[in-house]
């Protein structure tokens, strides 16, 4: 039953992902992206990958809201902009989309046709995963953490309060 549910959820995720790149409205696309990430989380749960499922929900699905803020603040949602977007979707994006679609086939079916025969899912203990991440893969984990710190430093730089001289220059 759980394999059936996993494939159903994964199909849903794929369908929502395809729909999310073919929508003209950015907000609808985001909504579908969210649906896709949620369905992917459900697929992980069905395959007993609880940690991946929970992280999928918390980090990925939870963080789309930040993208939403950017969309609302930066994307033009007027009727003319939408018409332009629809025109682009009909013509220019067709070939790149087809190309990406083709590249999905080996992921879906496996190069040797055996991607689905990975064997019964094994439930991994959170402790084991933690030991793996901070033991064997410690350096890699720390490097990823450093990348996040780079982002934080960037935010600190952008959000700094300007001194009087810089503020003057900003006004000009």
């Amino acid at each position, binding site marked *: 039953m759980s394999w059936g549910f996993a494939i159903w959820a994964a199909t849903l995720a794929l369908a929502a992902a395809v729909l999310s790149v073919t929508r003209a409205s950015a907000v609808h696309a985001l909504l579908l992206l969210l649906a896709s990430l949620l369905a992917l989380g459900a697929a992980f749960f069905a395959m007993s990958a609880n940690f991946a499922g929970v992280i999928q929900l918390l980090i990925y699905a*939870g963080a789309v809201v930040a993208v939403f803020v950017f969309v609302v603040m930066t994307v033009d949602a007027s009727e003319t902009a939408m018409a332009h977007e629809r025109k682009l979707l009909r013509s220019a994006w067709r070939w790149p989309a087809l190309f990406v679609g083709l590249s999905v086939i080996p992921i879906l079916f496996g190069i040797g046709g055996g991607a689905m025969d990975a064997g019964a899912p094994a439930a991994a203990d959170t402790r084991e995963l933690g*030991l793996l991440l901070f033991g064997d893969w410690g350096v890699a984990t720390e490097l990823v953490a450093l990348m996040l710190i780079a982002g934080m430093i960037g935010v600190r730089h952008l959000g700094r309060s300007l001194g009087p001289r810089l503020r003057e220059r900003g006004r000009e």
Partner: protein
Amino acid sequence: MSIALITLFSVILIMALLVAAGVFTWVERRGLGFLQERLGPNRVGPFGFLQWVADTVKLLTKEDEVPPGGDAITFRLAPALAAIPVLAGFGVVAFGPNLSLAALDMGVIFILAMLALTVYAMVLGAWASHNRYALLGGLRAAAQMLSYEAFFGLSLMGVVMLAGSLSLGQIVEAQSGVWFFILQPVGCALFLLAGIAAAHRLPFDLQESEQDLVAGFMTEYSGMSFALFFLGEYLAVILVSALAVTLFFGGWLGPVLPGPIWFGLKVGALALAFIWIRAILPRPRYDQLVGFAWKWGLPLALVNLLLTGALVVMIGGRPG
């Protein structure tokens, strides 16, 4: 548990939660009345107890329409997103020894994820309303959620370290000696602060603050859609209280009475504290709220985590 039993338990749980949320609205209005020296609802039924039933009937029969220029599908979908994730979150709550719908080995993070998803209800509802006040409320909701989620999760990691588990049942069992709010006072305080923000309750309800934004993201909602937002909010209060009781106040542990009763009593007491806080504290300014989260909440949670980790290792450490 068999599938039939799980389904039966789920249906009973959802029914109980819907009634609890309804009764909670009555308790809140009476409680606020008491704290503000007025009567509160007192006409329908004894002590106005049936007021919530009357309100539900009214909301079910009210007209519920999409504002002109609004996005109909998203507008209708958003209120459901307020209630469903919170209901799903209750699926992993441990109501008693071996008494939970799904004993997920990382129940704590699952509930955090479900609470984080409720922000979509506000943001999408606000956007679909085609209304400036609503949109401002929605953007506030997004910024508040991002700010508070960061230290919401970190504040409870001290408990996870002490218990050595992310499973709600095991965390409760680890408190058989001493409750974690004694060992983790800073973590507990930060958790409750962030919990108020996660449940979007006064004084942290900047996204709907009626004094400056009409009703914020809910401005255009009426009828049952409006009720679903409220349902989500009250259920979130109960869920945050249940999580706090599990993590810091010994869960179902207690003398004489059976476990689930103790759990219910503790959750009720904490939910009353939410009402009390609402009645006595003014709302901060929006930048103060977000500033506090990043400048105080997050660093304090990190220091707390560091000290707890050092102590846990010094006192004997958990076997690796």
